[in-house]
């Protein structure tokens, strides 16, 4: 799981049925200090997050299929939590 910041919506009308009723966001991975780290990618929202939120992203397909209860879901990155606070040790 990684931390990322939600940048914005990605709107599609033609899509795989498993993506119906889920929001897709473009996200920027961040480190524990909130600094950008690595390339942006796409994630499906399962935590009612929105642009500007720092979120926890699960990137393991089998876990995602269990959470969604959809054994044929092609989703690879799922937003599973919204971060309130990070306290780095250093």
């Amino acid at each position, binding site marked *: 799981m*990684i931390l990322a*910041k939600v*940048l*914005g*919506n*990605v*709107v*599609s*009308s*033609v*899509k*795989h049925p*498993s*993506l119906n009723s889920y929001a*897709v966001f*473009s996200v*920027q*991975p961040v*480190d*524990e*200090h*909130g*600094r*950008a*780290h*690595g*390339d*942006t*990618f*796409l*994630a*499906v929202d399962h935590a009612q997050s929105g*642009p*500007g*939120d*720092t979120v926890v992203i699960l*990137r393991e*397909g089998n876990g995602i299929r269990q959470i969604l209860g959809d054994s*044929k*879901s*092609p*989703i*690879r*990155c799922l937003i599973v939590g919204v*971060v*309130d*606070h*990070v306290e780095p040790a250093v």
Partner: protein
Amino acid sequence: MRADRKEKAEIPVPLAAAAAPPTGEPALEPGAGLCQPAAMFLARVIGTVVATKKPEGLTGIRLLMVQPVGEDGTPRGKPVCAADVTQAGPGDLVHVTESREAALALPDPFVPVDAAIIAIVDHVHQEPFEEGRP
């Protein structure tokens, strides 16, 4: 038997020593490699692939060349060949999923596919990235 095990256990030690960066070289910064690989990303369709000899489960599945792009459309990394289930065409901005989940998007999920187009993107709402803790 025990001697064999000991020998096997000793193998990784010189490998680990070889992999360690030489002293004086800057160590990897914390969090390096956070996002490898991307897994789901935006891409632009740059061409079609025609293959006459394909695995059985891929009959009738379109193959397209896609170039991963950023939110602003700038190319990023190398193009990949992706299976398509959305009838996307050249020039379309698409949502690509990778690894095992790519095959799950296809009618037959037991096919040798590691990238698939699962949506055609209409538009991307982009907000500027603001650094800082939540």
